[in-house]
């Protein structure tokens, strides 16, 4: 295997995302202010030396909250992607490999789930299990998994027709063995690419849920929730929306650039067709 190069855009993407992750991690160690303590004497204070990114309507430091908010947002987004892939990938491969009635039944059920807008599914599920990090993650996972299963299945289907999987069948290997050793590894590239866009979608969906009033409960903020809460103060305290918005935009931009680069690198068809670089 050649050296893992991401190219300029990909490196830039990794740097942007890395910066946001670092900022969030730094928050675990030190934060300029207590992000939850209220200070009614400092409400909606503009950015200054004391509060670099200003304060919100409760006098809480926006920088500290952006740092703390990253924890919630990045956690929700990455857990959602991880779970979605962890469930969707093996299941999709299995479905494609086993085929027959099992495949038809599973795909019909998943199509039924896919038929609803993911935001609405998330909204309904949040209403059932209540707003919490695990609630949001579960809701988004249920909403996104059918898509991952579909993609994995289509990749796996094309693999099933290729020689080596058939050969392994002849050799009498178990289904589990074939799925784990051959089908899943070949699905990783397209799923990695999909993961980047799922990450972005999860960040935004969490934000839209906050806007609709079913986001994560306070006091721990998320970027999306901060953005939604800052909306009424757009004209008098634009920093309330600007900085969490920027945090989302930078993470997403990093994520998208990284996803593009990953696709260019990992997609086997591209590798064979594109040849060099």
């Amino acid at each position, binding site marked *: 295997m050649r050296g893992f190069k991401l190219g300029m855009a990909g490196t830039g993407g990794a740097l942007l995302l890395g910066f946001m992750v670092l900022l969030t991690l730094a928050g675990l160690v030190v934060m300029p202010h207590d992000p939850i303590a209220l200070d009614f004497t400092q409400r909606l204070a503009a950015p200054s030396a004391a509060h670099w990114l200003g304060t919100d309507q*409760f006098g809480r430091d926006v920088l500290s909250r952006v740092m703390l908010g990253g924890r919630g947002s990045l956690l929700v987004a990455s857990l959602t992607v991880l779970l979605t892939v962890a469930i969707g990938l093996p299941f999709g491969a299995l479905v494609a490999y086993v085929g027959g009635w099992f495949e038809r039944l599973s795909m019909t059920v998943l199509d039924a789930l896919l038929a609803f807008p993911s935001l609405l599914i998330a909204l309904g599920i949040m209403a059932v299990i209540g707003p919490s990090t695990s609630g949001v993650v579960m809701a988004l996972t249920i909403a996104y998994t059918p898509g991952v299963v579909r993609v994995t299945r289509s990749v796996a289907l094309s693999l099933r027709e290729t020689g080596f999987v058939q050969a392994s069948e002849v050799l009498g290997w178990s289904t589990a063995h074939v799925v784990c050793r051959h089908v899943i590894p070949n699905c990783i590239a397209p799923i990695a690419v999909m993961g980047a866009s799922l990450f972005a979608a999860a960040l935004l969906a969490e934000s839209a849920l906050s806007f609709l009033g079913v986001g994560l409960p306070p006091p721990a903020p998320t970027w999306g929730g901060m953005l939604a809460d800052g909306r009424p103060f757009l004209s008098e305290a634009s920093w309330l929306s600007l900085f969490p918005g920027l945090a989302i935009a930078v993470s997403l931009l990093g994520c998208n650039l990284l996803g593009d680069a990953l696709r260019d690198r990992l997609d086997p068809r591209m590798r064979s067709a594109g040849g060099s670089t």
Partner: protein
Amino acid sequence: MFMWGCLCFAGPGGAAANAEPILRVALASDLRSTNPGINRDSVTDWVMTHVVEGLVATNAELAPAPMLAESWSVSDDGREYTFRLRPDVKFQNGATLRAAHVVWSWRRMLDPQTRWPCRSWYDGNGDSGVRIDAIQAVDEHTVRFRLREPDPLFLYRLADVQCHVAIIHPESLDANGNWRWPIGTGPYRLKEWRRGRYVELERFDGYSLAAQPASGFAGRKEAFVRNVRLVVIPDASSAKLAVLSGEIDIWPLTAAEALPELRRDSHVDLLQEASRDWSVLLMQNRSGVMSNPALRAAIASALDPELISQSTMHASRPLRPYGVPAEEIAPDILARIPPAYQPQRTQELLRQAGYKGELIEIDVSRETGSYFNDAIVVHALLVRAGINARVRSMDWATQFKRYLGHEYQLSLFGYTGRATGPMMYSVFVCDPVKRVNCVVHTPRALAIMGELNTSSPQRWPVLMGELEMEIAHDRSIIGLYAPLRITTVRRSVVGYETWALGMPRFWGVRVDAPGQTTAVAKRLARVSAASGQGTWP
């Protein structure tokens, strides 16, 4: 009542200058139905008061005042009320109001088939209220109600807004008795309802004006504006922009977050007043850790109501520790009620309660912005006091179910203001055997409540004082503040006023037509004004 700026009467030309201006009002949510009293919420209530009327109505002093009945008499034993109807009152379909219509409307509401939520006020099965034995038309213009026993609150109940019995024409129903469309006697008729978009009211030209001056929901309700269009705008930020751009003339229940921007705009006035509504923190008293009264007292001692009342920026809400404004309660008793907030005692109280860091959840619904803000402050105060608190946000239907099922530990909640103290207290002081929404139900509280429900108004201040004393001992309800009702009114609107119950009324209101016809010129003016204001980041 507070008022910023002034209502400017110096509009060029006056009201009749242009062809029939229209008054446009923002509605945060659509009507529940057009069936007054049966399928309702607060918005439906006040929209429908323009269309239908009852025998009596609440006036500005919150007392029952003549509406369709021009006068009444009460028999010596207090069990017989005889109402004399105003002659020449017309329904919106042209029919003349007769006593038979009143009897029909009332029988319809009291029929169990109609499923009127307030029926227990009059069927003798409720924990308060009285049984109506008979309603009869004495002659064409006289109606008599016979009660099982005397009820000093009877007229107040008749005037109540939430449980109003509207006198409607039978043609409001179809042949099968199903609801069709309200045909009432109000100054406006319901012209059109485009669900999710708008409700349009049209002046009822055959309206017969009462003789008394307009007061509250009663008196001379003279409609000047021909058409009132109530536009459904669910998003508060959008409503703010609509009132700033002149597409909306009145924004009732203005969101406090919009205040700074609205204050800077020279085209709007802001009317602000404390309502009779009551924002509270409910504390569980039946099960779990919260059933320990000492813990409730400890939590109450940590909550600084001053800070909570300031949770919404730009609007300072008056503290309201009691179910009714303090002026209505006997002052000598009030002086003896211990304050809930005693931060220096919190730790001692927590020790007494044997609190060992159990998780305490605060129920709050995000649908109304200010409760959510309150939750953030309450949470911060509890955490500072060393209590392991967590905010549990949910939608209203869930919070409401948890409230009725007493599944909450702490719940940020609000009660709509009632015209009288007894009616207000009976919402939450009641016998849990009879009703599921009772919060305070100590034997002493129930005894005082029973007395309050059957006493004359002169006794109310003392009884309410004793009740508040008991509520203070029980600590299952902490009074926080009286929510503000802020109304944004464009200066082209003349004669719009708020009042003690805070519900909008569009009779007596005029619109300066030029305010609407020269929208382009106004917009140009605003662009130049805005560029100098630097409001845009």
